[in-house]
């Protein structure tokens, strides 16, 4: 088991109180597994991805543990996490394309990054060039400024950089959402290629786009209101979803070929719960067509079929 996350709780401090963005998340990730982490805005998916690599200033580790290859990650302690970052756990942040310093040549930035981590630039340069070529970039991009590259090219540069030291875990947050469909496909397929070549052992692909993540993921996790609603092998999640939220979400997605006249799709009425003071019990209860009194009690995240976990009383 590469990654084991147990009852992880991360809150945001605000003047009005704690926002429970992650409120008890438990899952495991196998060696070589690519899992998609899907959810709507405010579901906590980005917070979960960030928590495994770097908590930002407003985030507070309230409870739970994260283990990577049997060692606990000190996620609440930024200084101690430094040993793991980039070497063991790495992230391609949301808006990675704008994360590049516009006044520096890309090669200069890479040298500075490596130096700050105590790694000799010379030693990794051949591997860096090899991997740039692998994603279809000429090593000459290192002499260019970020503004000279397209969005897809920048995204691939960041991807190569983040994985240069062969981390055990990569968190890729919305890496394809700002790209055109054809570029999107190339970047998504490069992620799989990196896993297949062992540049990254396991991967969490954070996205709002279920159809995109279905293309590349072995398993998919669906998040709702700071908790996991469902985790299952990708095909099982898409063809036989168990959680009412997953079902309604999938039913709301127009696919090419579905036309309004033939089949009118329906959204999910209502909105996500307030995480500042979330209601007790199942977080989806207020919008769920199946909800009854029992749902006032929080359903456990249990395995209902091999590798298929659901947090719903009705899913048994």
């Amino acid at each position, binding site marked *: 088991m590469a990654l084991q996350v147990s009852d992880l709780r991360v809150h945001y401090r605000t003047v009005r109180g704690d926002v429970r963005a992650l409120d008890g998340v438990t899952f495991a990730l196998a060696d070589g597994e690519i899992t998609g982490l899907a959810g709507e805005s405010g579901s906590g998916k980005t917070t979960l991805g960030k928590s495994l690599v770097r908590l930002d200033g407003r985030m507070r580790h309230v409870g739970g543990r994260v283990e990577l290859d049997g060692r606990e990650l000190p996620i609440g302690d930024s200084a101690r996490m430094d040993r793991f970052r980039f070497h063991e756990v790495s992230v391609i942040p949301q808006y990675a394309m704008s994360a590049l310093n516009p006044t520096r040549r890309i090669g200069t930035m890479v040298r500075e990054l490596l130096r700050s981590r105590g790694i000799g630039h010379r030693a990794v340069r051949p591997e860096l060039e090899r991997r740039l070529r692998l994603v279809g970039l000429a090593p000459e991009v290192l002499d260019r400024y970020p503004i000279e590259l397209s969005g897809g090219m920048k995204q691939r540069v960041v991807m190569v950089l983040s994985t240069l030291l062969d981390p055990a875990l990569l968190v890729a947050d919305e890496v394809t959402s700002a790209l055109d*469909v054809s570029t999107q496909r190339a970047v998504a397929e490069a992620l799989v290629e990196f896993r297949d070549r062992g540049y990254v052992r396991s991967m969490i692909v954070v996205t709002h786009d279920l*159809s995109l993540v*279905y293309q590349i993921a072995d398993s998919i996790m669906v998040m709702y209101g700071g908790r996991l609603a469902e985790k299952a092998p990708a095909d099982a999640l898409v063809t036989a979803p168990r959680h009412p939220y997953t079902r309604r979400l999938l039913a*709301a997605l127009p696919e090419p070929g579905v036309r309004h006249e033939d089949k009118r799709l*329906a959204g999910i009425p209502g909105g996500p719960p307030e995480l500042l003071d979330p209601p007790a019990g199942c977080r989806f209860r207020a919008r769920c067509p199946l909800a009854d009194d029992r749902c006032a009690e929080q359903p456990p995240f249990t395995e209902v079929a091999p590798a298929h976990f659901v947090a719903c009383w009705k899913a048994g």
Partner: protein
Amino acid sequence: MLELDSVSKVFPRGAFGRSGVTAVRDVSFAVRPGEVVSLIGESGSGKSTIGRMVLRLASVTRGRITFDGADIAGLTRTRQLREYHRRVQGVFQDPFSSCNPVFPADRVLDAVRRGYFPDVGAAEWRDRVDAALEVVRLDPAQVRGRYPHQLSGGQLQRLLIARALLLDIRLLVADEVISMLDASTRIDVLNLLADLRARGLGILFVTHDLALGNYVSDTTVILRRGRVVETGATATVFADPLHPYTRRLLASVPRLRRRWSDLPDEPAGARPCPYHERYPRGAAAGPPLLAVADDHHVGCFADDGKPC
């Protein structure tokens, strides 16, 4: 109702604008009452520029855009333009940046009254607002006096559509109206567009997402680098895409229950571009579009010698 006839847009570039960038080139299509036309393209295809020209937010460099037969470039007086905007309105991608965050969101509705209906009394105006909100399925109590951050993206987007409906509009330009919305609410906005179409409104639906375009539209126009690559009845274009670019685009769209790896890669040149077969020298040589069937046209974006 709305007609574009060989419309081009050149943005000046360089010192004194001596060189230009052609963002839109020889684009022609029409929007009829009760019709949804999807304008689909990747970034830089010129789709938003076309929407902006229709709304008179950008000028037309060459060609004509007519609304009910009158060239909209001729609407130069403030009063004429105001009349035009009573009929033609736009809704854009980010609903939050369409509203001033320090005022309640429904202030955009009052602005319509101040600008267009100063003579309507308060009580009647309230009724009209309620009626418009009902069409977009918003509860007036839910939105009155609320600030933009208190509403969801989908609610705010529907409020902005209600704003357009307060005017007696006949054409709505919807530019990426759902790309910022969550999956569980975006379908409501799409269904709303379909309902408005049923009421006889013409809609120009600008999007980069082929699946969404297919769900709601009657006619599809696929753009690439400012040119129309393929156009026709939506069902035809999606069932039988003829231009290699359209086929590549459709194959790259991620779908549920069908992986990219399940599709055999189409070998390059397996099905050549019908436009090039007829006009071997490409877009520089022939007319903008080649009719392959009654309601199915193919164009080309490649200049001399380049493959498409």
